[in-house]
């Protein structure tokens, strides 16, 4: 009787051990080679590959758009529609544009802060850029780009750690803002007394404004997928 009990106990223990083993193995199998199991350098390579792929696809988008524009020239109706489309693309930022305007270059302050002064005051921040862009828009700029990022309806200008996020792309000082519009109006809007320029230069932020007879703003290169917005009839 005693040995029977012992045998039963042994079987039980062995069965539990086997169950635990196979459950554990099964669990480890179901684990995908997820992020936590991968090493940083592997992830960096992966990121590089994804970025290369994205750039290649972006080129493809460009050539496909060109083909599409060609197709739009076939009939009279198509020509009218594609002309309207061209115009809308230009306004919305989905086509590159050019014209007279100003180039505003912003950079961190060269002043060295005194002891006890907040060094953050002497760095170029997202709200400085935002203020300049806002002022340019208010002065009638028809197209604006920030370090090659076209300013469109969904564009954000936001602090992203040491960089500034524009169109979900990180840009860093020096920030070059291109604005198409009347050059004199744009510049004087920035130089208004008590205006943007005064606030920025007070902290030593380097601002350079150049009036240009001709400058170019690139097209929006991001991917705008509307998931919520619908046209209202």
């Amino acid at each position, binding site marked *: 009787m005693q040995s029977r*009990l*012992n*045998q039963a*106990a*042994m*079987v*039980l*223990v*062995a*069965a*539990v*051990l*086997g*169950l*635990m*083993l*196979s*459950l*554990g*193995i*099964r*669990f480890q199998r*179901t684990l995908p080679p997820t992020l936590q199991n991968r090493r940083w350098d592997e992830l960096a390579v992966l990121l590089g590959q994804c970025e290369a792929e994205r750039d290649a696809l972006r080129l493809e988008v460009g050539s496909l758009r060109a083909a599409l524009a060609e197709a739009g020239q076939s009939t009279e109706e198509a020509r009218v529609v594609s002309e309207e489309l061209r115009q809308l693309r230009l306004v919305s930022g989905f086509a590159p544009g050019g014209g007279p305007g100003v180039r505003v270059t912003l950079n961190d302050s060269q002043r060295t802060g005194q002891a006890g002064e907040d060094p953050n005051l002497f760095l170029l921040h997202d709200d400085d850029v935002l203020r300049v862009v806002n002022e340019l828009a208010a002065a009638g700029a028809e197209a604006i780009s920030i370090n090659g990022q076209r300013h469109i309806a969904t564009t954000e200008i936001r602090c992203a750690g040491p960089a500034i996020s524009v169109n979900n792309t990180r840009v860093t000082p020096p920030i070059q803002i291109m604005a198409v519009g009347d050059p004199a109006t744009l510049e004087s809007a920035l130089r208004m007394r008590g205006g943007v320029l005064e606030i920025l230069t007070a902290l030593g932020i380097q601002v350079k404004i150049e009036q240009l007879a001709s400058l170019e703003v690139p097209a929006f290169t991001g991917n705008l997928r509307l998931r919520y917005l619908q046209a209202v009839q």
Partner: protein
Amino acid sequence: MVWAVIGLLAGLVAGVYLPVELPAAFARYHSVALLAALDSVFGGWRASLDGSFHTLVFVTGFFGNALLAAALTFIGDRTGVELYLAAVFALGVRIFFNLGAIRRLLLHLPPGKHSL
């Protein structure tokens, strides 16, 4: 011994075919408990070789250590102290110690009398 092998196989098969998944949250506790269970098994093997095996001690040790190790890990997770490392270290050392003893016993050497 035969019964143990049969039980082990039954458990393995059951684990493969049972429609239960190990929840991800329990995976860590399960791993540490498994280590404790393995430690008990090697301890039991050694005990049976040197003649001091006792079923009740073995069975209670098996379940008790597994539960204790899992509980220790749980408490460690809650308090932010990596207590499972203590369990892994202690159990790992004991497993190797027991394996060494088993090797000696299987080679019919008295424990601790030889340098190699």
